[in-house]
């Protein structure tokens, strides 16, 4: 991802954290440092994981491991970036079908940013020379289909849609057939937002995925869960429940352009080993970048160069 833009998104975060880190690096007693670190981590939504990290740091302080300034922040950077994975290949963040269309299923809770992420992903694929087809699988929310229609008009891409209230699995089925018939490179299937606690809706998702897999070999090739960066510790629960229902293959971390730090994604990464594939950084179509864990943590903890 482009470091500049990403950093701009995290600027506020970084400023606050770097201030706190300066305090950390100063000649203060370990206790004051730990207190500052505690605040940094918790206010970044790192959650219960912060408690463990603090214990580690405290132990290391007691053992005298952090003698020079900057050693502790350095330790933290390594420790944190080890918790969250990005795509194995930065140039090829998403799996592709060997032949025929690659199918990407987009899932998430209400209001997490699915439809906008779909639009951004279409744009990303298009800029990589792919022909993209979109399926409007959110037949539940009023005017969701219209919202996607407007995006697809802007993106000049074909949308497979059905009337409000139609069976989303049927839409997915039709879209898969259309993708085969049109020889599209990529089919992106949007779905209705659903709280992960709604059992019947989660089952519906499983059905959508099954219908696609019957139609196209190896599909869906990616199931991406869209997480709102402002979400707190519930993110882990969301990811867990979605993964129980369909084989989620990665995350899109949306809305990382405010002051929210997205620290909950560290817990998600650790607990569920789900890589973050993309980050959403703004309202524009190209405010969307491949996730890089090192840069994410660097931007969060501000390296010494500043």
């Amino acid at each position, binding site marked *: 991802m482009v470091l500049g833009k990403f950093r701009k998104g995290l600027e*506020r975060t970084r400023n606050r954290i770097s201030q706190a880190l300066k305090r950390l690096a100063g000649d203060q007693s370990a206790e004051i440092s730990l207190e500052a670190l*505690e*605040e940094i981590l*918790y*206010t*970044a*939504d790192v*959650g*219960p994981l*912060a*408690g463990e990290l603090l214990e580690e740091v405290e132990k290391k302080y007691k053992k005298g491991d952090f003698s020079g300034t900057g050693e502790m922040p350095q330790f933290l950077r390594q420790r944190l970036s080890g918790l969250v994975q990005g795509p194995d290949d930065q140039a090829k963040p998403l799996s592709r079908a060997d032949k025929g269309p690659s199918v990407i299923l987009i899932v998430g*809770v*209400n*209001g*997490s*940013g699915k439809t906008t992420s779909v639009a951004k992903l279409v744009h990303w694929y298009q800029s990589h020379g792919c022909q993209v087809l979109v399926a409007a699988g959110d037949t539940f*929310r*009023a*005017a*969701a289909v*219209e*919202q*996607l*229609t*407007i*995006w697809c008009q802007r993106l000049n891409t074909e949308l497979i849609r059905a009337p*409000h209230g139609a069976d989303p699995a049927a839409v997915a089925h039709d879209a898969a057939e259309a993708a085969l018939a049109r020889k599209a490179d990529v089919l992106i299937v949007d779905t209705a937002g659903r*709280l*992960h*606690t*709604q*059992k*019947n809706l989660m089952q519906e998702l499983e059905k959508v995925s099954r219908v696609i897999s019957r139609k196209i070999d190896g599909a869906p090739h990616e199931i991406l869960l869209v997480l*709102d960066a*402002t*979400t*707190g*510790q*519930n*993110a882990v*629960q*969301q990811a867990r429940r979605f993964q129980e229902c369909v084989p989620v293959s990665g995350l899109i971390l949306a*809305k990382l*352009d*405010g*002051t*929210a*730090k997205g*620290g*909950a994604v560290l817990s998600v990464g650790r607990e569920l080993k789900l890589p973050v594939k993309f980050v959403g950084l703004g309202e524009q179509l190209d405010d969307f970048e491949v996730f890089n864990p090192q840069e994410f943590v660097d931007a969060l903890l501000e390296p010494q160069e500043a």
Partner: protein
Amino acid sequence: MLENLTQSFGKVLDRFRGPGKLSDEHIAEGLREVRRALLEADVHFKVARDFSKNVGERLKGEERLAGVTGSQQVIHAFHQELVALMQGKGEPANLPKNPGHPMVLLLAGLQGAGKTTTAAKLGLWLRKRQNRKVLLAACDLQRPAAVDQLVALGKQLDVDVHAETPGQPGVDPRSVAERALEAAKKGRYDALVVDSAGRLHVDEPLMAEIASVAEAVQPDATYLVLDSMTGQDAVESARSFSEHLDLFGVILTKLDGDARGGAALSVREVTGRPITFLGVGEKASDLEEFHAERLASRILDMGDVVSLVEKAQEVVDEEEAAQDYMKLMEGRFTFEDLLSQFRMLKKMGSMKKIFGMLPGAGKMSGLLDQVDDREIARMEAIVLSMTAAERLHPEIIDGRRRRRIARGSGMEVSDVNRLLQTFHAMQKQIKSLGRMMKGGGRSKKRLIKQLSRSGQLPPFAPPGRR
């Protein structure tokens, strides 16, 4: 709803209940647990810190009191602090009366918080509960098809919507809001609910835009719509919105999920404004009024019988509900009661929601997860296969009777066992709550007072009655 939060507190309280007498170590240990529970629940770091400190101080002060048990002290202290935190200073203000003009409500919030859905829910609530003629104004001109969404929701609910086509000359949020207000006055509407575009709180131009909408329509109440899953950033956005807008209250959404809802505590603290409504489901009728006292009780795992009764009020009449309530308090909870609950449930909505309001629900939440609405029918079938004697005296149900009941209802014996377990857990919790209520005459009175008021005291007063 809020089960996890309740569950955490349940665990903490169990620790306190055990030893009986409170030592400094117990307080310290308990406070660590409380603080961790709060942080896990997404309560803001500083709010959690201050909160546990306050509780600690209160506990120390109360230790010298004689004649109360440790657990009573702790429950009392937690309860007091939680209520204080949720209410802040002062009672929720009533809206100024504004005769001859529609009451104007403006909704603001981050993207994806649930503003448009809430606008529709609020419109329905105003019509159903306050008998108003409602107009919705579609002023989110930014998100594609947001206007269409509100129009579609209005059609579903039979609530009028003032909508204009985005992108046309002269169609900007402020002008649309102004014209909607004109239309509301002309059409003799009682209430105007203004939806707005979602925005990042760091986006100055957009914050200025909504401030300008507010200036144009002079809302009687501006609500911040907040996603209950929000993490630490809730504090930042609440602060930013309250700097730009004169917030009246907060609407907490998506509480039908399993988010622990700690953001509610933080936002109350930061804005000083009350949480007024809760969004608790996909249906337009899933909007509840918020009561700090009730949420505190729920967190303390005492359940929310009052809220249950209120919800039931739309179905059963008040007197009947009061009788049920008193009966529950006395601990005479039988399968006949459960059966009438089931019947009420069918009219009222989700099983889980109702169980969530019952005492001890937090501890049963593992079980609750397995319960869906279709199970009501199955559970009802089991109860219906019981004899009258079995329903009134469940203790006589032995193995043979269980087999008969299972056969009669077409279920497995294990299903019958599960229902009996649930029933016993509920019975036990209700009994202990009843005992607690008997002990404290004042709190009982307060609860009953709340009961008699519920539904008749909306969170804000209607403007001039004509």
